[in-house]
């Protein structure tokens, strides 16, 4: 039973991550490979606050979001001057830099040995120590994220983002400050990744840098693309699918030593398959056709 709750919690976390990445990658057309970096920033911020100062859970989450947002802002200043593949490669670079920092800043992050002993959250006296209660908590936050972001993309803000994705020069000629909208989309996207990071840290009670590598970023972008970039339902479906699918492998009875490789191959294979036969993803409308 605990196993299923664990899967449910992860689905919830990844739904928050792919929904938020979808804002940047799907709606604004900013394919970023740094999302796991922001996820890690959020996780480490929450973990360090809880371990060193002992601040309450809700406060940690908010600071994790703010921290991810600030770093996203700093990254966006140079990156958003670039387009398409160059933008992807720049975010690639920042992902590597964030990972290197988490892995080597020994005095702060304890490097590869990670941070153990993060407490399970307590909100107004309610303790979320059992997995069942954490499922409820993650579920509520994921639903809140969905509603908030859904509201955002169907507002005029979301329409401008889509206009920028389809034709940036046109959006500019309509008097929209394209740069500002892009930065905002990037920051909002990153801050929800920070939120997911905080939730992850308080759930696992132990974090280390290997959870926030570039492969994690590629997994997240696969979720968005396979589900359907630029659709809310796509992000949810993509996240759930890519979490559940590898778990099925477990039941076929593959030995653990090769299961990890097979799981990665599945992600990679699916990504190639979708690029070939359904580039708009499961729930998707075709991506920008300009070029």
């Amino acid at each position, binding site marked *: 039973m605990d196993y299923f709750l664990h899967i449910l919690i992860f689905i919830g976390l990844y739904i928050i991550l792919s929904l938020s990445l979808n804002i940047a990658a799907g709606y604004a057309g900013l394919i970023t490979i740094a999302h796991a970096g922001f996820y890690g920033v959020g996780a480490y911020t929450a973990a360090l606050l809880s371990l060193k100062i002992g601040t309450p859970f809700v406060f940690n989450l908010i600071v994790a979001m703010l921290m991810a947002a600030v770093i996203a802002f700093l990254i966006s200043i140079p990156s958003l001057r670039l387009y398409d593949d160059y933008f992807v490669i720049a975010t690639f670079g920042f992902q590597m830099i964030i990972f*290197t920092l988490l892995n080597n800043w020994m005095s702060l992050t304890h490097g590869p040995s990670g941070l153990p002993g993060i407490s399970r959250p307590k909100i107004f006296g309610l303790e979320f120590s059992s997995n069942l209660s954490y499922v409820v908590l993650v579920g509520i936050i994921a639903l809140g994220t969905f509603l908030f972001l859904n509201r955002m993309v169907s507002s005029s803000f979301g329409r401008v983002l889509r206009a920028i994705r389809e034709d940036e020069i046109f959006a500019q000629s309509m008097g929209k400050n394209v740069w500002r909208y892009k930065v905002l989309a990037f920051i909002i996207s990153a801050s929800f990744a920070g939120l997911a990071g905080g939730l992850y840290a308080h759930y696992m009670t132990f974090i280390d840098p290997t959870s926030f590598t570039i492969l994690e970023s590629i997994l997240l972008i696969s979720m968005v693309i396979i589900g359907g970039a630029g659709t809310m339902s796509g992000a949810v479906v993509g996240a759930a699918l890519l979490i559940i699918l590898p778990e099925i492998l477990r039941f076929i009875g593959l030995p653990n030593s090769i299961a990890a490789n097979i799981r990665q191959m599945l992600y990679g294979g699916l990504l190639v398959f979708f690029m070939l036969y359904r580039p708009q993803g499961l729930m998707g409308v075709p991506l920008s056709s300009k070029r």
Partner: protein
Amino acid sequence: MYTAFVFGRINLPISIFIAILGAGFAGCLIELGIYRPLRRCAATPLTFLLASMGIYIVLQNGISLIFGDDMKSVRGGVVYEGIEMLGARITPVQLTSIVVTALLFTTCILFLSYTRLGKEIRAVANNPDLAQIVGINVDRVYLVTFFLGSVLAGIAAILISFDTDITPMMGFYALLMGVVAVIVGGTSSLPGALLGGMLIGITQSISSWKIGSQWQDAIVFLVLIAFLIFRPFGFFGIKIKKAGV
């Protein structure tokens, strides 16, 4: 595209020759099976980038599955003492690498500048549609390019495997550094690639000497980002609006 780096690993049991050819053919298969169909449906460069990431993940894990995740070594048991040269110590293997690199570099330049095929490759790079109109078989050029690129990657992989131990994961590092070197040097410029590669190597060495080896990757990527911002076309790159990776 650079995924074929990882293929050089196959050289464990079989000869170097088969490894290089294997890398070349793997490159061809990927071009025929995946990139060509993608081009047919007019995919964007981003689609290619994502597809190539997928291919990389599949290949790397496939190699892990077949050969195992652990380190392997093709070096003999004997460790040679380096030769003293200009105050630095250099092993015979490293010396071979330098010579082979210089030879390959010259061959590439001559090939791209003077042979018919080389000129065709540059024409396709510049403008595939126009190349098609003047009668160049664009698909064949892509295929040949993939074969040659993968062969070069295979050679590099073999040189590395004689110098250090190899793991399935090392391809990723080579890929990243390769991309960085190409961008820093300037896409579609061979002298640029050489200079970019040297700059990356020197940056790595200096930063690990002065700051600490654990920060060398971060420094390399800072250099990359600085280049992307201030000189996105690299040292010798021509001003092109967009370039494929």
